[in-house]
């Protein structure tokens, strides 16, 4: 690990632009899990600034701490050292100003699609008329119209994940955290969800942090792609994608910027796995 000099051009932490400038800010964050036998370092020296409205994808091999990173931002985990800031505020416990989407939709089986979405509103005690209006808007946006009364077991994987996405966006969170949200979907549905997510991101202006295993998904969706190496999880490089925000799926895949970025990431991940 140490033999290979890390590229410092893009990984160097951005000098503090003043508190509140970044939507998400990680400064020299490390996470160590203590077990009886040994200490495991899940993340080390991770520094990352995400600008408001930016879409950042995180790729890396399994066990590189990608999910850990999202949990840190959400306040579901505490960093062993370093500092995590969300909306300029230091993260010390579970944060409520985020939306979270997991790989599994994690829907309540006894609630219809609409009532699953409205769970967010019930717990937050949002005014019901406002919540209902916002839910209808999201249902239209994600193509769930006509499925409001369907129960999770009546919905396909793609539809379930759409419900989870609506639930995560209901309270208009400034930051959306997605942990391999489309990992369990078939390739076709996945492409479709990617297109939809791109559209939703543009129309909501939410900051998005997306963890994924798919290089093309990362490049198609993100402004920047964070490439990570495993054990301990560190940022190998951050790639600027340089594609326009509005992206047609087929057209984007054919663009030289897309091919250059995916090739670069594939190289980096290959180098990472060769080190092991």
């Amino acid at each position: 690990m140490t033999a290979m000099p890390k590229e410092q051009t893009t990984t160097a932490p951005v000098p503090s632009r003043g508190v509140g400038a970044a939507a998400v800010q990680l400064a020299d964050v490390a996470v160590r899990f203590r077990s009886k036998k040994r200490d495991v370092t899940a993340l080390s020296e991770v520094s990352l600034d995400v600008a408001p409205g930016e879409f950042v994808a995180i790729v890396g091999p399994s066990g590189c701490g990608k999910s850990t990173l999202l949990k840190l931002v959400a306040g579901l985990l505490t960093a062993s050292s370093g500092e995590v800031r969300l909306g300029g505020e230091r993260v010390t416990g579970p944060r409520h100003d985020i939306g979270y989407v997991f790989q599994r939709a994690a829907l309540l089986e006894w609630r219809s699609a609409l009532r699953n979405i409205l769970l967010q509103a019930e717990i937050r005690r949002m005014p019901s008329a406002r919540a209902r209006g916002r839910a209808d808007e999201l249902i239209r946006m994600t193509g769930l119209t006509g499925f409001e009364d369907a129960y999770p077991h009546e919905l396909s994987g793609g539809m379930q994940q759409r419900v989870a996405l609506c639930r995560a966006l209901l309270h208009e969170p400034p930051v959306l955290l997605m942990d391999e949200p489309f990992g369990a979907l078939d390739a076709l549905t996945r492409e479709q969800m990617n297109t939809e997510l791109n559209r939703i991101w543009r129309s909501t202006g939410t900051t998005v942090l997306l963890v994924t295993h798919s290089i093309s998904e990362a490049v198609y969706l993100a402004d920047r792609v964070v490439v990570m190496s495993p054990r301990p999880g560190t940022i190998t490089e951050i790639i600027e994608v340089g594609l326009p925000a509005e992206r047609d799926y087929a057209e984007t895949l054919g663009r030289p910027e897309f091919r250059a970025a995916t090739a670069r990431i594939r190289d980096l991940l290959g180098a990472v796995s060769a080190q092991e």
Partner: protein
Amino acid sequence: MSESALAKRPAEPAGVARRAGPTAGERLARAAEQSWRPVALLLGCFALWWAIAAAELVEPYLVPSPGATLDVLTGKAGYLWQHSWVTTYETLLGFVIAVAVGVLAAVVMVYSSTVERTLYPVLLFAQVVPKIAIAPLFVVWLGFGIAPKILIAVLIAFFPVVISMVTGLKAVDPEMLQLSATMGAKPWQTFLKIRFPASLPHLFSGLKVAVTLAVTGAVVGEFVGANEGLGYVILQANGNLDTPMLFAGLLVMSLIGVVLFVVVEIAEKLLLPWHASRRETSATTTY
């Protein structure tokens, strides 16, 4: 969903499938398909019983004929009804108390690891003690009335309720709990909206075991010392070598157990339609 909403439904995106539920006819056909084997087996047993009695292979005072048993069931219906009611009453009261105490104990144990570590081993130990063996003691303490029967029914039915409820409350999707943390849910909100409903399928499987065990508990109580109830009827019939009455008592007792089991199952279907329908689909798919 209104008709206009249906009409305006956009073309469904790829990968979208809303599975239609089975029709009433299909459901009936499936029920018949699933139940003919056990029904046939039961009828076979009755046929065997009838054949043995008819051929007089065994003395009638040892195994009465189905006809003699039926005569008792119809001829002494009033007597059986009166005692069945006592047993049913004891069973239900014991069951309800076991459920209330069991659910409460499970909730406390899941939310307090100290209580769990203290109570759980003791519960396990208490489960190992044969309740039938302590039944005479309860009669000494509580007399010949209804109280010792209910207490034994409670003790026997309590364990499956606690175990299933603890399992159910712990089986909640951890991601669902993390999600509720990001929503800023208060503990009682997480409990009412997520944990408790999620535990109900587990609880109901425990309730089905508990309700049949409660019948056993009540009858055991009656065996030890009673002047009413089906346990008393059977003991009396046994003493008089009145095997037709003994068989009739057994049949009625089994019937009570089956009816209570079915009632719990119907309650499950009504209260957890989402769970029942999921089970129907999972019967034909393998995960």
